[in-house]
């Protein structure tokens, strides 16, 4: 029970971290800047 709870907590933290980073990518400012950087290479 205890280790199962720990496992779910770890999964929850990992999912939260991934969601937060993905949200950072969706910020218009970052999106535009990364796009400009990407396109400038070609």
């Amino acid at each position, binding site marked *: 029970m205890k280790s199962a709870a720990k496992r779910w907590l770890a999964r929850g933290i990992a999912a939260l971290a991934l969601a937060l*980073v*993905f949200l950072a990518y969706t910020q218009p400012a970052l999106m535009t800047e990364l796009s400009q950087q*990407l396109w*400038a290479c*070609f």
Partner: protein
Amino acid sequence: MNATTTAADAKLSMTRVLICGAMVVTTSMGIRHGFGLWLQPITMERGWTRETFSFAIAIQNLCWGLAGPLAGMVADRFGAFRVLLAGSLLYALGLLGMAASASGWAFTATAGVLMGVAQAGTTYAIVYGVIGRNIAPEKRSWAMGVAAAAGSFGQFLMVPVENWLIGNAGWQNALFVLAAVALVIMPLAVGLRERPQQGGPAHGARQSIASALREAFGYRSFQLLMAGYFVCGFQLVFIGVHMPSYLKDRGLSPQVATAALALIGLFNVFGTYAAGSLGEKVPKRYLLSGIYALRVLAMIAFLSVPVSPMTVYLFAAMMGFLWLSTVPPTNAVVAQIFGVQHMSMLGGFVFLSHQVGSFLGVWLGGKLYDKTGSYDVVWWLAVALGVMAALVNLPVREGAIERRTAAA
């Protein structure tokens, strides 16, 4: 058996290895992943061409691959701890040098050579050696999956972080901050410090480096694993570098390319973890073969339908899931076959093959585009190589190699 018991007593705990190993890989893989963001500010301020910057990054990738076996050899002989310390220091020096370099050659020496060697000393092969020696074989693939997923997360995380740093602190200060971050590997390395007796052989007598190399390079399964990993490097770096240009040619907006790269980063974390976990249940040769086969199917499907934002996102998610998922099973098979005595060195050689593939993927992508005016030839080359990789992994023998020389 007594020796085994002693070694087991001296082993590091799994939690400690996983936490420290994962954080080392997150840091080392993450820092380098956003280097493209420095292209514009550095070339503009220094008055360099893009070629100067790109050349240094290409050298970095080659040095990473070439220094890998050597760093692995030292780690296997003297422990990962010392290699990680040296790698962390070189990483920080490389980043400081990148900020201070006023000439193209100095930039190549620091951002290219120093950082390439630093990466060889702080990434998968070194951490996997510690995992191999300290985590039971039945948990090894899963543990490698955790470490690989951490590296994938580092890559995913650091692009927005580095972009924010450049925007708020300036490109040079951002590099100073990253140099400080690279030094965090040092205290983490303490958590991976092994006792001297742990470097013993996994099975059989102690083996010399020359004998280990002769054995590995003369063994068919090792050659097949290297061939598969070559294809992995070719496909990933071709897609990672040339896909934005391909999408631009197809008339898609830059935001679509950015979102695709974000999706690759996100699904890469899930894919590497899943591959490591599956490696505990499924024969790894089938897992590797399946990964390469799925890549082939994804590429054929993507090339066969009209390109739209939705098809790009689906392709990115699928390829992201398969992105670094070859890393845990490939390294776990190497440990299974040859034991863990020379694991970091052999992992370094397999990775060298990956880097040669990466180099060719980038270079041929550009070369054939210039010759033919499209990426079609390279896409289909990536498909053909994928079929080959799916096939060559099938006959890989995963069992421990039989050695004639018994323990004296």
